């Protein structure tokens, strides 16, 4: 087993929380993990990404080679497309539909969606909207993780355990909210037939 995931977004959008859940779950399952992240200047409202590699064998490179990502999971639609060169031929794209606009030349939303839809394996999730509807837009990242969990070879139990571990210092309410966000995201995946078939 060897899975490569690119997480992408804008500095401050919470992709490292997704990464931390994946890392923790993988270690719980006694798997090897390497996960690179961006610190420093780019974190200030710039494009950021994290490479997550999970395997049952030793992993060498901290960076995923181009064309080897099984999944690009993005909390922002344009940032999803920035990493297309990394995507495997039959790889998956999962993204929040909500753009994060902090530049003057941000493209039209529909142009982005059109580009994403060129790839057969894509899921555009209204993650921010779903997160708002359950109480807090900040848990959009857990909604997305829930959707993508269908194509991530980690058990649901270990992912849920990892969420609990990660938020153990927060209130019971916050843990619950994150678990609920995950469950809501997972429901989105259920509606997509080829996603289910993939699993």
């Amino acid at each position, binding site marked *: 087993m060897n899975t490569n995931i690119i997480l992408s977004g804008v500095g401050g959008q919470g992709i490292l929380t997704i990464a931390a859940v994946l890392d923790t779950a993988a270690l719980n399952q006694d798997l090897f993990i390497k996960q690179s*992240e961006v610190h420093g200047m780019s974190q*200030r409202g*710039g494009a950021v990404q994290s490479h997550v590699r999970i395997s049952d064998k030793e992993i060498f*490179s*901290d960076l995923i*080679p181009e064309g080897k990502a099984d999944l690009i999971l993005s909390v922002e639609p344009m*940032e999803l497309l920035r990493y*297309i060169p990394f995507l495997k031929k039959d790889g998956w794209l999962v993204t929040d539909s909500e753009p994060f606009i902090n530049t003057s030349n941000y*493209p039209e939303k529909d142009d982005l969606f059109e580009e994403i839809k060129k790839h057969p394996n894509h899921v555009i999730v209204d993650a921010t909207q779903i997160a708002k509807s359950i109480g807090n837009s900040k848990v959009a990242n857990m909604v997305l993780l829930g959707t993508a969990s269908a194509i991530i070879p980690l058990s649901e139990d270990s992912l849920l355990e990892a969420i609990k571990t990660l938020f153990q210092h927060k209130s019971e309410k916050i843990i619950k909210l994150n678990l609920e966000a995950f469950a809501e995201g997972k429901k989105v995946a259920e509606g997509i037939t080829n996603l289910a078939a993939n699993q």
Partner: protein
Amino acid sequence: MKSLLLGNEALAQGSIDAGLSGVYAYPGTPSTEITEYIQKSKLAKELNIHTTWSVNEKTAMEAALGMSYVGKRSMVVMKHVGLNVASDVFMNMAVSGVNGGLVVVVADDPSMHSSQNEQDSRFYGKFAMIPILEPSNQQEAYDSMLYAFDLSEEVKLPVLLRMVTRLSHSRAGIVLRKRRGPNDINLPTDTSRFALLPMNARKQFDLLVNKQDALIEYSEKSNLNSLKKGKNRGVGILACGIAHNYVMENIGDEETDYSILKISQYPLPKEKVKALYDHCDEILVVEDGYPIVEELLHNYFDEDDKIKGKLSGDLPRTGELNPNIVGRSLGLFQNKMAPIPSVVTPRPPQLCEGCGHTDLFNAINELIPVIGDKNVFGDIGCYALGALPPLGTINTLIDMGASITMAKGAADAGLENAIAVIGDSTFTHSGMTGLLDAVYENTPITVIISDNSAVAMTGAQESTAVGRLHKICLGIGVHPDHLKTIVPLKKNHEENVEILRNELKYKGVSVIISERPCVRLSRDQKEQIKARIAALN
């Protein structure tokens, strides 16, 4: 179970477990998390390990040397350009040698993710003639710390440990081992080696030169350097540090035919290198950073065309390596990947919403039509982003503290209305001495200290400047009438522009402290800053 740690954190935990007594550092990407990890470690607190930030890398390294002098193990941590600041003590403590183990950790930044250059610290290690370790992965970073302290104490020299961004900022599961205790105080038997008067220094330098063969011998025997001879006698691969991972990613670990020499300790083990050279038709040197090993191989061997790498054009001369680049150099990766769709636009970093620097730049920009658009000298920090559109205020960004001294030089040359913009922490790091130069000559410059009470760019660490800037400036000799304070807020815009306009008219040194805490500070951090200021008064 394994511990999930960043390369930087693995190294930090390794230092605690190796019996560290103190870490000294100034924040700098990609090195910052090493010190922060020890600062947050409960164990480090229980063990009373020193962890407070230093004013700059030079003061940090000198303090680390002081701790080593009394026999304890110390570590000093910085980014690559920080070693330039500390290079005076760095070069000289190689001559004096150390007492307690001393490890200099330097994190290089190939590709300049958050830096002004991509200098390779291995050159400094070679320059100082000390051992260098270059871990290839997180576990090795952890394990290397114990070895580094032992080696330092055995050869009585500082050991340089080189990290690179991708290793510093990548996580993996780490197996921890048993911790050992710190050293007791044990002063050097003969202190004359630390008193580098010419007669002592000559003796010490001879000693250092004479140690070199022993250092090579350590490298020959080191587990960090391993030679694996394969059936393939064509290309032999010499892979340094993290580059080894990129090689292995391409050729796979099982039953490879390639001959591979992995190097994670220097000086180079000549025998091992020669064995690879003799076994193969050519050698591909894969190293992240400058082609330092490739150059050395050209010195070792006559047949120049047998040695491939960055100088030969087989690998790119600039930027960091990655698995694709290394794969291409081995002829193992040719696939052309899909391009980034053209609809995607760049998203460069920018100042945070509500940042005080923005309001300051807006005030300066009001005066640009009058004073000219090339008069503002900048410095290292978040505010360097003020060089980018839409602000475009800052013209220069060279090194810590250079805003003040470059403004001075420009004013000396006749530039009127020279403005320096420097952050509070950068000012205490390297700006104070330059301000004294300007005050000494009463050079007509306007220095703006953009004081956000934090080392913001690297994650809002404590700034040694907090609550001290006024007194420092007055103490240096800035005239009280030309030491002003402004609060960079929209509502104060007109007033701030007027103050700036007036100070630019003054034909001497003015200092304007533009004072507003970083918007990223937590409530706790703001409380701590208040308490620190209260304690000063």
